[in-house]
């Protein structure tokens, strides 16, 4: 074969300097990157490498979509919140090729999903018992199976909760916190931590007692946070220090009692909690200070405009003889200055409510949207190139 030797073009030279090429690639949208993985094995290794995610995400990213549970436990309805040309995840039903079981999304954390299964136990709506766990990146469609949580000397213990701790701005690796029953006493708990670097579970600290519900935790500020409803406390476990801390829940002035936590979550490095009641159309969004000194009111929300635009929200509750409002906070997205919004489920529509301008926008019909009354109601979809 004849070989013509010509001077390399600039493009070829650029392509041969990995450091320069990667700096160009990190600026591309996810869609282009998924396509360019096919250019060559080398390009694929650059795009899926550990360095890539760190270079691409230098600040926290807001959710671009929500996975809403459906009637079948492993099926999800995807609601797109971002720009039209942004990535849409590809699964509707959560399945892992080597696993015959049904999985549910247990938690969404900065782009990664923690997916769990009860194995061959047939479960319809409860998110327990947890026997198998995968960490899944829905953007790149990559996953890792974790060793079974809560197993001590080959004996499985009760798993009270598993929670993902991942923040690509801080570290490319992730950890999972498992709270399981202690081998010493029924009422005691024990923390175990899995790290993606070691690929194994490790016991952390001493057995302890608690009233918190460890089923649903929120990762923020280097810690996983749980609500203890009976004690009205926020309990958190710091992953660096491997120590617990606690603080109070916001003190909502409430003449009527019976407010429920409708939203507890994190967006772009802010931890929020919303307590609402269906006979009130206004509520406050509380945000926690980074030093845990207090919950402050970040937004005072009045949904009167939403109730006017969607009159089917209001109904007469004859038991208490007053007007009530049917809605639920699906998510809160801190998408940046003047564009942070709530996603609300109303009887007919899923609606976006801008927290600064109070503008309302329909997102989709709520007809086939299943309402999960447990927290979280939905799971955020955040674009990520994190390796799992």
């Amino acid at each position, binding site marked *: 074969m004849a070989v013509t030797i010509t001077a390399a*073009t600039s493009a070829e030279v650029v392509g041969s300097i990995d450091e320069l090429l990667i700096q160009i690639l990190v600026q*591309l949208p996810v869609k282009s990157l*998924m396509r360019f993985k096919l250019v060559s094995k080398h390009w694929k290794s650059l795009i899926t490498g550990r360095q890539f995610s760190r270079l691409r995400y230098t600040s926290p990213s807001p959710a671009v979509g929500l996975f809403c549970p459906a009637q079948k436990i492993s099926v999800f309805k995807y609601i797109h919140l971002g720009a039209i040309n942004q990535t849409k995840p590809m699964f509707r039903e959560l399945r892992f090729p080597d696993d015959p079981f049904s999985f549910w999304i247990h938690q969404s954390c900065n782009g990664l999903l923690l997916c769990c299964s009860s194995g061959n136990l047939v479960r319809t709506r409860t998110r327990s018992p947890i026997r198998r766990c995968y960490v899944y990146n829905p953007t790149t469609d990559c996953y890792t199976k974790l060793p079974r949580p809560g197993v001590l000397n080959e004996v499985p213990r009760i798993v009270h909760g598993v929670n993902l701790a991942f923040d690509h701005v801080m570290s490319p690796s992730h950890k999972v916190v498992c709270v399981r029953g202690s081998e010493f006493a029924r009422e005691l708990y024990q923390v175990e931590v899995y790290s993606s670097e070691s690929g194994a579970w490790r016991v952390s600290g001493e057995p302890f007692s608690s009233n918190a519900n460890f089923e649903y935790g929120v990762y923020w500020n280097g810690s996983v946070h749980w609500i203890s409803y009976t004690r009205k406390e926020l309990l958190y476990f710091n992953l660096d220090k491997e120590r617990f801390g606690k603080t109070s829940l916001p003190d909502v002035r409430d003449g009527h009692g019976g407010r429920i936590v409708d939203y507890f979550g994190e967006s772009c490095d802010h931890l929020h909690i919303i307590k609402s009641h269906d006979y009130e159309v206004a509520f406050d969004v509380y945000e926690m200070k980074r030093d845990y000194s207090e919950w402050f009111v970040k937004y005072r929300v009045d949904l009167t405009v939403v109730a006017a635009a969607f009159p089917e929200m209001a109904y007469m509750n004859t038991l208490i003889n007053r007007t009530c409002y049917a809605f639920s906070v699906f998510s809160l997205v801190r998408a940046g200055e003047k564009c942070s919004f709530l996603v609300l489920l109303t009887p007919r529509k899923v609606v976006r409510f801008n927290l600064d301008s109070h503008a309302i926008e329909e997102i989709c019909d709520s007809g086939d949207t299943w309402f999960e009354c447990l927290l979280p109601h939905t799971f955020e979809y955040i674009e990520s190139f994190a390796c799992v």
Partner: protein
Amino acid sequence: MARKNRNPVGKNVDPEAQKKKTRTLTLKSSDGQEFSISESAAVLSIAIENMVEDDCAGGVIPLPLVDGGTLARVITYLNKHAEDGASDEEKRKFDEEFVSGMEMGVLFDVVLAANYLDIRGLLREVRRRIADRMKNKSVEWVRKTFHIESDFTPEEEEQMKKEFAWAWEGVDSDVDD
């Protein structure tokens, strides 16, 4: 306030900065063209600044990896960014216009020069522009442009295309630009 050499009023100006503004350097491209540039503009390139500091310049700085056409462009950029009265807004507008007219081949020439000469602002601007021009391109266009041969088997390619079918929507046709 008036400690830096960017002070347009000209009071209390650092004498060293003043000297840099009047002193000129000669940059010599790979094809032998020579360009005069004020030292204050030239040292926006960290690589040139290091050469000047090491005093290996000796009047003429040879840049064997940058051709004349590209060097002329880079100098236009450096002069604008060293200009005394230019506001940040003006510079931003200049940057935008500077890269918007460039053909793809020129963008690659300039990104290499900016990388070699370590001109951070220019590098950032050109990288962003290249990414913007590449984003809707096909895999074939990328392979052709970067002279890359696929090392995937047809089966592997088919499998990946199937997995990420959505990534193939809205791709531009392969017209050269």
